[in-house]
């Protein structure tokens, strides 16, 4: 019966999505921000479970919630604002940060693709791994351009960010990374928004540099990667 109801009134899927998102946020806050319960991860898992239980296919679901997907683009545009407000930070250390950004913008996608290529992954999967260190909205945009699988890219990007968030403090301890600028910048470069949230919990300075790195990495990779892939293929 619920299956028919959701089929006949697709707006209910929109309602369902927002309710599930709110519940996920609540669970995350109650769990003292446990990284395994990140709202994106649990919300996606819960929506998939609901769709499977009520037997709704992804096509029907996506059509019903296309307005939310449109706002992803709007939010991407809004990322210009934190980038602008953090931009003064780069002026103080312009040379080291620019070099670090340029080198990592090349190394990160190359190593990500190479490691999967050695293990014989499919071409579309390899392309889906290339944008894995940039913020999800950019990554999904890039995925659509280069012929990768956008949903797979979204999943890969989210897990990548969570990995960086989880290992960051151990890595800083083991490799004695004690400069908050280096800490924040590397977290933003490789772990985008999810690691940036963790960086802000370390200190405001760490978080600001992480946000800066994430914005610069998203802007440069989403601009250059499509050209690079077109040149390669």
């Amino acid at each position, binding site marked *: 019966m619920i299956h028919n109801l959701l089929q006949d009134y697709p707006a209910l899927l929109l309602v369902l999505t927002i309710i599930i*998102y709110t519940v996920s946020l609540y669970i995350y806050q109650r769990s003292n921000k446990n990284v395994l319960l990140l709202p994106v991860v649990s919300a996606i898992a819960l929506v998939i479970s609901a769709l499977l239980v009520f037997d709704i296919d992804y096509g029907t679901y996506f059509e019903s919630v296309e307005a939310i997907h449109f706002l992803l683009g709007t939010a991407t545009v809004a990322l210009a604002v934190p980038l602008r*407000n953090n931009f003064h930070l780069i002026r103080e250390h312009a040379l080291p940060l620019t070099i670090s950004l340029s080198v990592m913008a090349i190394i990160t996608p190359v190593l990500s693709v190479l490691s999967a290529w050695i293990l014989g992954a499919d071409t579309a999967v390899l392309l889906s791994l290339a944008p894995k260190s940039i913020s999800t909205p950019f990554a999904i945009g890039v995925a659509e351009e280069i012929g990768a699988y956008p949903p797979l890219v979204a999943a890969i990007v989210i897990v990548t960010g969570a990995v960086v968030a989880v290992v960051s403090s151990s890595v800083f301890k083991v490799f004695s990374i004690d400069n908050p600028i280096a800490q924040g910048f590397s977290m933003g470069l490789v772990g985008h928004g999810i690691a940036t949230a963790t960086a802000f919990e370390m200190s405001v300075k760490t978080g600001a540099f992480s946000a800066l790195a994430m914005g610069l990495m998203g802007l440069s990779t989403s601009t250059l990667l499509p050209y690079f892939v077109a040149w390669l293929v």
Partner: protein
Amino acid sequence: MVIDAADDVKPTATMKFLIYIPLFIVFQLIGNWLKVFWDLPIPGATIGMSLLLLLLFIIPSNKGITASAQKLLLHLPLFFIPAGVGIMNYTEVLKQDGLALFASVFGATILCFILAALFTQRLLKSEDDADKFCESET
């Protein structure tokens, strides 16, 4: 009257938040349009973001825009859901290339992160040393 007359004159925080959302959408649409017009391979939202970034460097103050963007970006995870749920159609890919995906998402990510942290710290240190050297020279 329950509604205070002052509310009509002074825009509340909520109204200020809403005022700038159309601005972001306009830049998004301009970005999408330029992408089609010049046949660019870059995502339309990235073009829109670059244009907004230029505008933000020109205007002297952006308090209202900042508050609005913060409110919107607070719920960024919600906007990922429609795309993310699509993973339900890729169980075959996950099964087939699971090991390669795991190696890249865990192995390559941690390796890149260590490289980025070490490299950035090294560069910052050499910049510091160069500064000190210049100071001692003068």
